[in-house]
Protein backbone atom coordinates (compact mmCIF):
# COMPACT_ATOMS: atom_id res chain seq x y z
CA UNK A 1 0.00 0.00 0.00
CA UNK A 2 2.84 2.38 0.84
CA UNK A 3 4.76 1.18 -2.24
CA UNK A 4 6.12 3.78 -4.66
CA UNK A 5 5.48 6.49 -2.14
CA UNK A 6 8.84 8.15 -2.62
CA UNK A 7 11.12 9.21 -5.40
CA UNK A 8 14.51 10.71 -4.64
CA UNK A 9 16.45 12.53 -7.31
CA UNK A 10 19.12 15.15 -7.06
CA UNK A 11 18.50 15.62 -3.33
CA UNK A 12 14.82 16.29 -4.02
CA UNK A 13 12.38 14.02 -2.23
CA UNK A 14 9.11 13.58 -4.12
CA UNK A 15 6.45 12.22 -1.80
CA UNK A 16 3.25 10.89 -3.34
CA UNK A 17 0.74 11.32 -0.54
CA UNK A 18 -1.90 8.63 0.06
CA UNK A 19 -5.65 8.94 -0.53
CA UNK A 20 -6.24 9.91 3.10
CA UNK A 21 -3.68 11.79 5.17
CA UNK A 22 -4.60 11.48 8.85
CA UNK A 23 -2.77 10.68 12.11
CA UNK A 24 -2.53 7.02 11.11
CA UNK A 25 -1.08 7.43 7.61
CA UNK A 26 1.01 10.48 8.60
CA UNK A 27 2.70 8.30 11.23
CA UNK A 28 3.59 5.69 8.60
CA UNK A 29 4.97 8.35 6.27
CA UNK A 30 6.98 9.97 9.03
CA UNK A 31 8.63 6.65 9.89
CA UNK A 32 9.65 6.09 6.27
CA UNK A 33 10.92 9.64 5.75
CA UNK A 34 12.91 9.49 9.02
CA UNK A 35 14.77 6.49 7.57
CA UNK A 36 15.40 8.35 4.32
CA UNK A 37 16.58 11.50 6.07
CA UNK A 38 18.94 9.40 8.17
CA UNK A 39 20.78 7.89 5.21
CA UNK A 40 20.33 10.33 2.29
CA UNK A 41 20.93 14.00 1.79
CA UNK A 42 17.58 15.69 1.13
CA UNK A 43 17.46 19.42 0.45
CA UNK A 44 13.95 19.92 -0.93
CA UNK A 45 10.65 18.07 -0.62
CA UNK A 46 7.74 17.98 -3.03
CA UNK A 47 4.43 16.77 -1.57
CA UNK A 48 2.27 15.45 -4.39
CA UNK A 49 -1.46 15.68 -3.55
CA UNK A 50 -2.71 14.18 -6.83
CA UNK A 51 -4.26 11.11 -5.09
CA UNK A 52 -5.25 12.81 -1.84
CA UNK A 53 -8.92 13.43 -1.02
CA UNK A 54 -8.72 13.81 2.77
CA UNK A 55 -6.34 15.58 5.12
CA UNK A 56 -6.67 16.71 8.73
CA UNK A 57 -4.40 18.55 11.16
CA UNK A 58 -2.10 15.52 11.43
CA UNK A 59 -1.23 16.04 7.77
CA UNK A 60 -0.45 19.69 8.52
CA UNK A 61 1.83 18.51 11.34
CA UNK A 62 3.62 16.12 9.00
CA UNK A 63 4.39 18.87 6.48
CA UNK A 64 5.47 21.34 9.16
CA UNK A 65 7.84 18.71 10.57
CA UNK A 66 9.43 18.02 7.17
CA UNK A 67 9.69 21.78 6.57
CA UNK A 68 11.79 22.14 9.73
CA UNK A 69 14.12 19.39 8.50
CA UNK A 70 14.81 20.89 5.06
CA UNK A 71 15.21 24.41 6.44
CA UNK A 72 18.51 23.33 8.01
CA UNK A 73 19.88 22.99 4.47
CA UNK A 74 17.98 26.07 3.28
CA UNK A 75 15.73 23.89 1.16
CA UNK A 76 12.04 24.33 0.43
CA UNK A 77 8.79 22.42 0.76
CA UNK A 78 6.49 22.33 -2.26
CA UNK A 79 2.81 21.38 -2.41
CA UNK A 80 1.59 20.34 -5.85
CA UNK A 81 -1.55 19.00 -7.56
CA UNK A 82 -3.88 20.53 -4.95
CA UNK A 83 -7.61 19.86 -5.43
CA UNK A 84 -10.44 22.11 -4.25
CA UNK A 85 -11.01 20.22 -0.97
CA UNK A 86 -7.32 20.22 -0.14
CA UNK A 87 -7.02 23.89 -1.08
CA UNK A 88 -9.58 24.81 1.55
CA UNK A 89 -7.87 23.07 4.47
CA UNK A 90 -4.39 24.11 3.34
CA UNK A 91 -5.32 27.79 3.18
CA UNK A 92 -7.03 27.69 6.60
CA UNK A 93 -3.97 25.95 8.08
CA UNK A 94 -1.59 28.77 7.18
CA UNK A 95 0.84 26.29 5.59
CA UNK A 96 1.20 28.53 2.53
CA UNK A 97 3.23 30.90 4.67
CA UNK A 98 6.04 28.36 4.70
CA UNK A 99 5.38 25.99 1.80
CA UNK A 100 5.36 26.88 -1.90
CA UNK A 101 2.24 25.89 -3.86
CA UNK A 102 2.74 25.03 -7.54
CA UNK A 103 0.64 23.21 -10.13
CA UNK A 104 2.81 20.21 -10.97
CA UNK A 105 5.82 18.18 -9.86
CA UNK A 106 7.74 19.43 -12.90
CA UNK A 107 7.06 23.05 -12.00
CA UNK A 108 8.35 22.40 -8.48
CA UNK A 109 11.50 20.68 -9.75
CA UNK A 110 12.14 23.62 -12.06
CA UNK A 111 11.76 26.02 -9.15
CA UNK A 112 14.22 23.99 -7.06
CA UNK A 113 16.87 24.27 -9.77
CA UNK A 114 16.20 27.98 -10.27
CA UNK A 115 16.66 28.62 -6.57
CA UNK A 116 19.75 26.41 -6.29
CA UNK A 117 21.43 28.28 -9.17
CA UNK A 118 20.86 31.55 -7.38
CA UNK A 119 22.04 30.23 -4.07
CA UNK A 120 25.73 30.67 -3.27
CA UNK A 121 27.29 27.25 -2.62
Amino acid at each position, binding site marked *: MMKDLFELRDEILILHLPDELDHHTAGEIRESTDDLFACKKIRDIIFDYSSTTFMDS*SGIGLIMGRYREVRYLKGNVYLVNISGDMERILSISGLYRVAIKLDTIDAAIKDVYNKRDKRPV
Partner: protein
Amino acid sequence: MDNNNNYMSVEFDSISNNESFARVVVAAFVARLNPTLMEIADIKTAVSEAVTNSIIHGYENKEGRIKIETHIVEDTVTIIVTDNGVGIENIERAMEPMYTSKPELERSGMGFAFMEAFMDELFVESEMSGGTVVTMRKVIGKNNEKWDEELN
Protein backbone atom coordinates in the same frame (compact mmCIF):
# COMPACT_ATOMS: atom_id res chain seq x y z
CA MET B 1 -41.54 7.37 13.50
CA ASP B 2 -40.29 10.76 12.43
CA ASN B 3 -37.91 10.44 9.50
CA ASN B 4 -36.14 13.66 10.38
CA ASN B 5 -34.99 12.46 13.79
CA ASN B 6 -32.38 9.78 14.02
CA TYR B 7 -29.72 8.51 16.42
CA MET B 8 -26.63 6.39 15.99
CA SER B 9 -23.93 5.27 18.39
CA VAL B 10 -20.69 3.44 17.73
CA GLU B 11 -17.86 2.47 20.07
CA PHE B 12 -14.39 1.28 19.08
CA ASP B 13 -10.86 0.69 20.33
CA SER B 14 -8.54 3.67 20.61
CA ILE B 15 -6.19 2.80 17.74
CA SER B 16 -5.18 5.06 14.86
CA ASN B 17 -6.38 2.52 12.32
CA ASN B 18 -9.95 3.33 13.45
CA GLU B 19 -9.74 7.04 12.59
CA SER B 20 -10.83 6.52 8.99
CA PHE B 21 -13.60 4.13 10.10
CA ALA B 22 -14.92 6.72 12.56
CA ARG B 23 -15.20 9.59 10.08
CA VAL B 24 -16.62 7.38 7.33
CA VAL B 25 -19.33 5.89 9.55
CA VAL B 26 -20.50 9.35 10.71
CA ALA B 27 -20.39 10.67 7.13
CA ALA B 28 -22.48 7.72 5.94
CA PHE B 29 -25.06 8.31 8.67
CA VAL B 30 -25.30 12.02 7.88
CA ALA B 31 -25.53 11.35 4.12
CA ARG B 32 -29.34 10.95 4.29
CA LEU B 33 -29.64 14.68 5.02
CA ASN B 34 -28.35 15.18 1.49
CA PRO B 35 -25.33 17.29 2.49
CA THR B 36 -23.00 18.90 -0.03
CA LEU B 37 -19.58 17.34 -0.61
CA MET B 38 -18.11 20.26 1.32
CA GLU B 39 -20.37 19.64 4.32
CA ILE B 40 -19.37 15.97 4.31
CA ALA B 41 -15.69 16.95 4.11
CA ASP B 42 -16.19 19.34 7.05
CA ILE B 43 -17.80 16.63 9.20
CA LYS B 44 -15.15 14.05 8.31
CA THR B 45 -12.36 16.43 9.26
CA ALA B 46 -14.00 17.43 12.55
CA VAL B 47 -14.65 13.79 13.55
CA SER B 48 -11.11 12.86 12.61
CA GLU B 49 -9.72 15.65 14.80
CA ALA B 50 -11.81 14.69 17.83
CA VAL B 51 -11.02 10.97 17.54
CA THR B 52 -7.30 11.64 16.99
CA ASN B 53 -7.29 13.82 20.13
CA SER B 54 -8.82 10.98 22.14
CA ILE B 55 -6.23 8.49 20.85
CA ILE B 56 -3.15 10.67 21.29
CA HIS B 57 -4.05 12.88 24.23
CA GLY B 58 -6.94 11.15 26.01
CA TYR B 59 -5.48 7.66 26.03
CA GLU B 60 -1.87 8.67 25.22
CA ASN B 61 -1.69 5.90 22.62
CA LYS B 62 -2.60 3.30 25.23
CA GLU B 63 -5.66 1.07 25.44
CA GLY B 64 -9.10 2.58 25.64
CA ARG B 65 -12.51 2.93 24.03
CA ILE B 66 -13.93 5.85 22.12
CA LYS B 67 -17.65 6.39 21.68
CA ILE B 68 -19.30 8.48 18.99
CA GLU B 69 -22.97 9.38 19.20
CA THR B 70 -24.64 11.15 16.32
CA HIS B 71 -28.07 12.76 16.60
CA ILE B 72 -29.96 14.11 13.65
CA VAL B 73 -32.82 16.46 14.51
CA GLU B 74 -34.42 18.03 11.44
CA ASP B 75 -31.46 19.52 9.54
CA THR B 76 -29.07 19.65 12.52
CA VAL B 77 -26.38 17.07 13.20
CA THR B 78 -24.93 16.76 16.70
CA ILE B 79 -21.82 14.61 17.09
CA ILE B 80 -20.60 13.66 20.57
CA VAL B 81 -17.16 12.08 20.89
CA THR B 82 -16.46 10.64 24.34
CA ASP B 83 -13.35 9.09 25.84
CA ASN B 84 -12.52 7.99 29.38
CA GLY B 85 -8.91 9.11 29.14
CA VAL B 86 -6.70 11.43 31.17
CA GLY B 87 -8.75 14.57 30.52
CA ILE B 88 -7.65 18.05 29.50
CA GLU B 89 -6.01 20.13 32.24
CA ASN B 90 -6.66 23.52 30.63
CA ILE B 91 -9.37 23.48 27.96
CA GLU B 92 -8.93 27.14 27.07
CA ARG B 93 -5.25 26.68 26.37
CA ALA B 94 -5.84 23.41 24.50
CA MET B 95 -8.23 25.24 22.19
CA GLU B 96 -5.78 28.00 21.27
CA PRO B 97 -4.74 27.60 17.62
CA MET B 98 -1.18 26.31 17.27
CA TYR B 99 -0.98 25.24 20.92
CA THR B 100 -0.04 21.60 21.40
CA SER B 101 0.91 19.71 24.53
CA LYS B 102 2.78 17.21 22.37
CA PRO B 103 5.09 19.08 19.96
CA GLU B 104 7.44 16.08 19.96
CA LEU B 105 4.74 14.08 18.16
CA GLU B 106 4.56 16.71 15.42
CA ARG B 107 1.09 17.80 16.37
CA SER B 108 0.16 20.99 14.55
CA GLY B 109 -2.04 22.36 17.33
CA MET B 110 -4.82 22.89 14.81
CA GLY B 111 -7.23 20.16 15.94
CA PHE B 112 -9.74 22.25 17.90
CA ALA B 113 -9.30 25.16 15.46
CA PHE B 114 -10.40 22.87 12.61
CA MET B 115 -13.36 21.54 14.63
CA GLU B 116 -14.42 25.14 15.27
CA ALA B 117 -13.86 26.19 11.66
CA PHE B 118 -15.73 23.28 10.09
CA MET B 119 -18.65 22.93 12.53
CA ASP B 120 -21.17 25.53 13.68
CA GLU B 121 -20.79 24.88 17.40
CA LEU B 122 -18.19 23.19 19.57
CA PHE B 123 -18.34 22.39 23.29
CA VAL B 124 -15.61 20.63 25.24
CA GLU B 125 -16.08 19.21 28.71
CA SER B 126 -13.29 17.43 30.50
CA GLU B 127 -12.41 16.02 33.87
CA MET B 128 -8.89 15.10 34.93
CA SER B 129 -8.60 11.28 35.02
CA GLY B 130 -12.28 11.15 34.03
CA GLY B 131 -12.24 11.78 30.31
CA THR B 132 -13.33 14.23 27.69
CA VAL B 133 -16.60 14.87 25.87
CA VAL B 134 -16.49 16.86 22.64
CA THR B 135 -19.87 17.98 21.29
CA MET B 136 -20.06 19.43 17.79
CA ARG B 137 -23.10 20.71 15.93
CA LYS B 138 -23.68 21.57 12.31
CA VAL B 139 -26.75 22.64 10.38
CA ILE B 140 -26.85 20.89 7.02
CA GLY B 141 -28.04 22.81 3.98
CA LYS B 142 -27.62 26.21 5.60
CA ASN B 143 -25.04 27.43 3.09
CA ASN B 144 -27.11 26.27 0.15
CA GLU B 145 -29.92 28.61 1.21
CA LYS B 146 -27.41 31.39 1.73
CA TRP B 147 -26.11 30.89 -1.79
CA ASP B 148 -29.66 30.88 -3.14
CA GLU B 149 -30.34 34.17 -1.38
CA GLU B 150 -27.18 35.68 -2.78
CA LEU B 151 -28.11 34.56 -6.25
CA ASN B 152 -31.60 36.07 -6.06
